[in-house]
């Protein structure tokens, strides 16, 4: 045992300074949500909508002006097929992954950005430096769990931010849900929520939990948390990387700003 203590000391601090300081966050090369450039979009082309497996991109009729794209990042599984199908670069691959938002509408691309809702909930203030999370897997593919588990590795070291996973929903402030909510997990999920003390919040992690993802519908799955629980933070991604999860949690605590509004990055 002393040997391991020595090894630990020898290796020194392995944690990245981010998000408490600027710099490296370990996501080099990672492809995020495709960025939509409507100005490059060709009329009467719907290659991206045809390629999209989850209807994140659909054609919307807008009166006589014809059709235009509706881009919903809450449905995007980051498969990058649209970026390969697009002939003009209007759907371009990007490294934007910090897509945690408070309102579902902010994941849908729109022309005009509205002013972001800042820390609306005063009750959250008390939790700024101590947040306890209960995670429930409602039928995920285990990708999201893998990244959630990574949060506690020495590189991200979530504890240092005062954010902890807890075993019992009785001690939890935030319910973090992954997966499209299968029929068999619906009741256990509701029971877990009911067991949480007030005030309590819900965070949907991963595209499955936000909107159902690739497994949506069918005989076994629902549409994520839609209509199941009231959601306070949405974080699409397939799966969202650990830095995106940290950002969304910090945003929930008003310790970092929301980066995305109306489906676009706030510069």
């Amino acid at each position, binding site marked *: *045992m002393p*040997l*391991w*203590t020595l*090894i*630990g000391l020898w*290796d020194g601090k*392995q944690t990245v300074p981010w998000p408490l300081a600027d710099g490296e966050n*370990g*996501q*080099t*090369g*990672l*492809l995020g949500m495709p960025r939509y450039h409507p100005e490059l979009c060709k009329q009467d082309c719907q290659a991206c909508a045809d390629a999209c*497996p989850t209807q994140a991109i659909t054609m919307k009729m807008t009166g006589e002006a014809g059709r235009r794209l509706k881009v919903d990042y809450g449905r995007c*599984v*980051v*498969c*990058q*097929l649209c970026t*390969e199908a697009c002939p003009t670069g209007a759907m371009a*691959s990007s490294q934007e992954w910090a897509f945690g938002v408070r309102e579902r509408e902010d994941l849908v691309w729109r022309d005009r950005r509205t002013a972001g809702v800042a820390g609306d909930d005063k009750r959250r203030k008390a939790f700024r430096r101590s947040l306890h999370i209960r995670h*429930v*897997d409602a*039928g*995920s*593919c*285990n*990708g*999201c*769990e*893998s990244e959630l*588990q*990574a949060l*506690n*590795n*020495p*590189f*991200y070291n979530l504890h240092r931010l005062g954010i902890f*996973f807890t*075993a*019992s*929903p009785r001690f939890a402030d935030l319910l973090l849900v992954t997966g499209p909510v*299968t*029929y*068999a*997990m619906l*009741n*256990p*999920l509701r*029971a*877990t929520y009911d067991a949480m003390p007030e005030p309590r919040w819900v965070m949907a992690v991963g595209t499955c939990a936000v909107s159902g993802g690739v*497994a949506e*519908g*069918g*005989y*076994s*799955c629902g549409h994520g948390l839609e209509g199941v629980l009231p959601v306070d933070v949405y974080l699409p991604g*397939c799966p969202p*990387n650990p830095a995106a999860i940290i950002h969304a949690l910090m945003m929930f605590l008003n310790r970092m700003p929301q980066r995305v509004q109306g489906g676009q990055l706030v510069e």
Partner: protein
Amino acid sequence: MQMGYAWYPEPNRLELRYVVTEPDQYLFGIWRCEPRGPVPSLAGIWPLMGWHEREISDLFGIEFVDHPQPHRLVLHDGVNPIRPPFDPAYPQDTALQAEPTKQSIPEIAGAEADVQLLPFGPVRADVVESGEFIFFYIGEAILHYHPRLFFKHRGMEKRFEGLPAERGVVLAERVSGVGSVAHALAYCQAVEAAANCAVPPRAQFFRVLLAELERLYNHLHYLGHLCHTTTLKVGEAEGKLLEERAKQLNARLTGSRFLRSILTIGGLRRDLSPKGWLGPELEALREAYSIYARHLENTDSHLDRLITTGKLNRRVAFDQGATGPVDRASGLDRDLRRDHPYAAYGNLPLAVAVREAGDAHARAQVRMAEIDASIALMQRALLLLPDGPIRSEYSISPRSEGLGWSESPRGTLFYAVHFDGEGKLARVKIKSPSFSNWRVFPHTVHDSNMMDYAINEASFGLTIAGCDR
């Protein structure tokens, strides 16, 4: 025997398929049967067929006569669909409804007052997948253990139906997140077998590289998690840090920490450029890992908890269908990469690690040896990486079918793919390694003790998503 599944060649014609290994044959044998009424169960001859038949019963409504465990498996008690979900007449997009009922549990003989029952789950401690485990125990001793899975059953196989072939890759990558490459690869190879498509050599080598990168981060996670259960805290931190480094390499190479969005039917979606940097990075990782592994193997407190824990003997492993490192730790020398080579595995030397002890330590040792073998294999693949195209064209002929397989980090994975008259997917069957190993696992838990349970479970390295689908 590898697996069994059912499908509808026509809306009113049901067919059963059995996939079997034939001695010294590269291809797997396929047995067919068109049931007219109840079918004799094979579970008495091949115990591993027990789960396959129960799944077919639940989802297709076929009755198996003389089944030793004639209970539901995939669908829970309290679910009463009007028709089996895979019946062509099942109303589309009608979600099943679950009444909260207690599952019927086999009775345990003996004085009831002495035996305690602990139902644990489906929402368990820590960040883990959902599943319910039922323990019958007296004090520390577990008399009987009953895992209740399929809470996470998403009906993934059904989601493939009606899609064009290339769309299936996105789904296959998301059946088991930490097995994205293995699943996508087995799926692509099944379609390529159906379409008689030859994959260019450069893509074949990249496929090996991707599959081994996946094995690497999975096995590193496994070692870290095993330390977690033996409460070797620094060992856990070091193992998970190595896993993080491996995942970051994945992202640098492919843009995805899970190596997604790169495989496609006929090859790869785009070329990769590992030249010059990946080799040295892997070597650095290997050095760090070998120091870590050496320390693990010299830590008595860690080894004491592993040695003799969760012993699985060779006979049970074979009969119940254990696969992958679990199988190889019980003395069975089987590996699809060597025995039924795919991608570029036929051109690369592979050392298959086998241990005889069958305990948690043997399972860990097999994985440790596989990390070394994986890195050696990747370095070799990088060295021999040919130039050339990375993708070839293919066309699907109507009513074709194919079988694809890969040796995932957790064991053998099969995809059976059938196309309909329009060249769309008619049926996709997935046999995941965790489906096999979850069936085997309880055999090592009965008559063990509570303190060893978590260690034993971690030593199997199971995923629930892969099993439940």
